[in-house]
């Protein structure tokens, strides 16, 4: 069997996304970028909470962050709490490869969608469950959102100014890192099922608090071996004096760091400190950490961002401006890498909707952003007709009963 070039890796595979808010829906959007038929199931009564989050109400379309999280999908409604919906959901499971959900563990179980039930319906199903604290353990019924994932995992303890309080990021770090871990796990489980002789699906238990805990590799072993709990240190880094964020003359910020001997050489050269024995080698610089921080801050304060970039580029030193959404949107490199794409508004608005492009670039099977997010239930007729043979009259009845 040979495939056509430009085929998508996950074309013809179906993902039922009963996720809400961020972690679950972001996971399935990644699979959608690589060709999967992702069907986002929302409550007909309320829709996905993310459509109407605080701070975005009153805009012409509800939540603009929602577009990125829910791109490359079809949208249907189904009230999973209703008796009649259970059967419909199970019929959809029978013709799907993957189910993703990010409720607390008992929620899907209570609605009749526990693992044992779903695997009987479809033994090839991959069921990715993304509860905040996972499916097991004493905290499994606790809720978790992005900042709880930051707090519990040990991440936020290391984020903030030296000697200051813990600071959370303004980004939903817990949810989004969970989504890349979950998408990776789903692809891995598909690989085992279809290429490694597995033949059957499996249950994936991916907690929201787990990825940052796992990825902060140093925290457990350093405590175990030395008794030290690593802590926050502003934008500096415990492992090297050669890392900080400094303000430039024109009010921008520049982040630099050096973790190898070569990188240190390039950095001190860029800062004009090659001949300064207080700073030009690691041991000495550790002794003069404060002085180095001040010297670096002064150096940046005397130069515009463009001047800084020019010097760093010339010396091959590691560093980059802190970019805002505005900076990124107008950046020539972001444009050249097609990291902003423009899509028609599925709700018929005149203005195209812009968002991030596909990551990464696959040479043989490049992904594609299928579409911006559709209105709630926008594919009810298409999906229920095509997959379950439900006709318009039946749909009208289901809608009248509040099932869809």
């Amino acid at each position, binding site marked *: *069997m040979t495939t056509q070039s430009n*085929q998508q*890796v996950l074309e013809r595979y179906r993902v039922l996304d009963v996720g809400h808010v*961020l972690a679950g829906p972001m996971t399935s959007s990644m699979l959608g970028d690589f060709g999967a038929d992702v069907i986002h199931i929302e409550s007909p009564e309320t829709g996905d909470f993310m459509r109407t989050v605080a701070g975005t109400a009153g*805009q012409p*379309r509800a939540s*603009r962050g929602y577009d990125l999280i829910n791109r490359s999908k079809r949208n249907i409604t189904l009230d999973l709490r209703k008796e009649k919906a259970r059967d419909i959901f199970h019929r959809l499971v029978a013709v799907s490869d993957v189910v993703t959900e990010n409720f607390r563990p008992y929620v899907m179980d209570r609605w009749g969608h526990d693992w044992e039930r779903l695997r009987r319906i479809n033994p090839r199903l991959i069921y990715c469950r993304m509860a905040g604290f*996972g*499916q097991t353990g004493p905290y499994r019924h606790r*809720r978790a959102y992005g*900042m*709880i994932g930051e*707090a*519990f*995992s040990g991440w*936020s303890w290391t*984020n*903030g*100014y030296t000697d200051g*309080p*813990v*600071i*959370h*990021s*303004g*980004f939903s770090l817990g949810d*989004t*890192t969970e989504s890349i*871990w979950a998408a*990776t796990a789903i*692809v891995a*489980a598909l690989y*085992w099922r279809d290429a*490694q002789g597995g*033949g059957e699906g*499996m249950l994936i238990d*991916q907690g929201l608090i787990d990825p940052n805990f796992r*990825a902060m590799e140093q925290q457990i*072993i*350093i*405590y*175990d*071996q030395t008794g030290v709990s690593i802590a926050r240190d502003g*934008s500096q*880094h*415990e*492992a090297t004096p050669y890392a900080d*964020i*400094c303000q430039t003359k024109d009010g921008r910020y520049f982040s630099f760091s050096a973790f190898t*001997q070569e990188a240190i050489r390039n950095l001190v050269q860029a800062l004009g400190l090659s001949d300064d024995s207080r700073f030009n080698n690691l041991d000495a610089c550790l002794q003069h950490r404060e002085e180095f921080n001040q010297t670096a801050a002064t150096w940046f304060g005397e130069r515009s961002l463009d001047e800084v970039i020019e010097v*760093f*580029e010339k010396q091959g030193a*590691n*560093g*980059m401006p802190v970019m805002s*959404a505005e900076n990124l949107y107008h950046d020539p490199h972001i444009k*050249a*890498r097609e990291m902003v794409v423009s899509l028609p508004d599925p709700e018929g608005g005149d203005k195209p909707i812009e968002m991030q492009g596909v990551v*990464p*670039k696959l040479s043989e099977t490049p992904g594609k952003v299928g579409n911006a997010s559709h209105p709630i239930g926008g594919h009810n007729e298409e999906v229920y007709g095509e997959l379950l043979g439900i006709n318009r009259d039946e749909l009208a009845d289901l809608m009248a009963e509040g099932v869809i």
Partner: protein
Amino acid sequence: MPQPKQQIFEGVRVLDLVSRESGATIAGAYLADFGADVIKIDKPGEPGPALDAHYVKNGIDLQYKVKGRNKRHITLDLSKPQGVDLFHKLVADSDVVVENLGLGVMEGWGHDWETLRSLNPRLIFVRLSDYGQDGPYKNRRLDGFAGDAFAGFCQVDGERDATPVDSQMDMAGHVAGMWAAMSIGLALYWRDARGGVGQVVDMALYEPLYRLIQTNITPYTSSGKADMRYGNRRDNGIPWVDSHETKDGRHYSYSGATRATYRDTQLAMGMFRDPRFKDLPTAFVNREAFHDYAAAWTKERTIEEVDEAFFAFEGASAPCNNAEDLINDPHELAREHIVTVDDPDLGPVRMQGLVPKFSRTPGKVRWAGEQPGTRNAEVYGELLGLTAKELDELRAADVI
């Protein structure tokens, strides 16, 4: 039907050229946790001494014990003619090469895609680079921390009107590493389940983190306003998502942004009947009073008391744990998230367990990260049939 493989990536061989200090080493570690034969190649004589005393014990880089776990470590100088030859023989017998050596470095040594694919048309060649393989900045340099800045992350991390901060985790590097693992999974799937061939994966270090930040592009293009950092006071200072210090100097975070979690947050802190906070719009008007009440309430209680109150009402909340808290936490222990590995350098060491949990193919932490070249005899013997004498000669010539 062939026998199912015991682990997901059993039989998949990965040549891992990702530098030891990069967060993206997690790509190989993830694949190795779930059964891949990951061969980490270090240059002979490298790495040099590790950088900071916090991370080192008896000259051992502690973090690398986790980053390099389950990988077989060999040395090879990919730039020397004999090294080129040996590397090409390894490539012929592998599934994946993953590298972050810098733009054009592999090409300069004779390991360009055309050469490698002619040796092995089924090869998946993952190219992690600072800014990607093309575009105007392709020759600039950054690492994980500058990656956080370029991805738009630092801009939203820190106090309002103050310098941005960054955590002690190389966010961009780790997210890129996981994204690389997913991409390898996709490329393997296309090759082995859909009749495809090998391919190149091109990814800039900051691109995955940039892709994840939902406030980056769409909200800016629709409102004209770029998101900013605001410490723990999100979205114009809403007080129902926040973090406060406890009586015993710990920090506790809670998130009451939905109707249900807002109610539970109020119940936990005993403010349910307070008319100033009866619903979200009213609480927003009285947000400073809410903030002061919550800060004072938390400050009067120990972390255990605060957590107990939130736990009783199933609030969305958690203590800001540090390593000491986590290593003793009953939930993390019950989840087997702390495992002990016997290491020849350090003896028994504790580190993170497996994430996530696969019901059918659980994976295993088999060993901790090794010194460079630990498995030279084993790997070169098994894969290329090299004898002890040949290895001695290669060692003498600084090839391995």
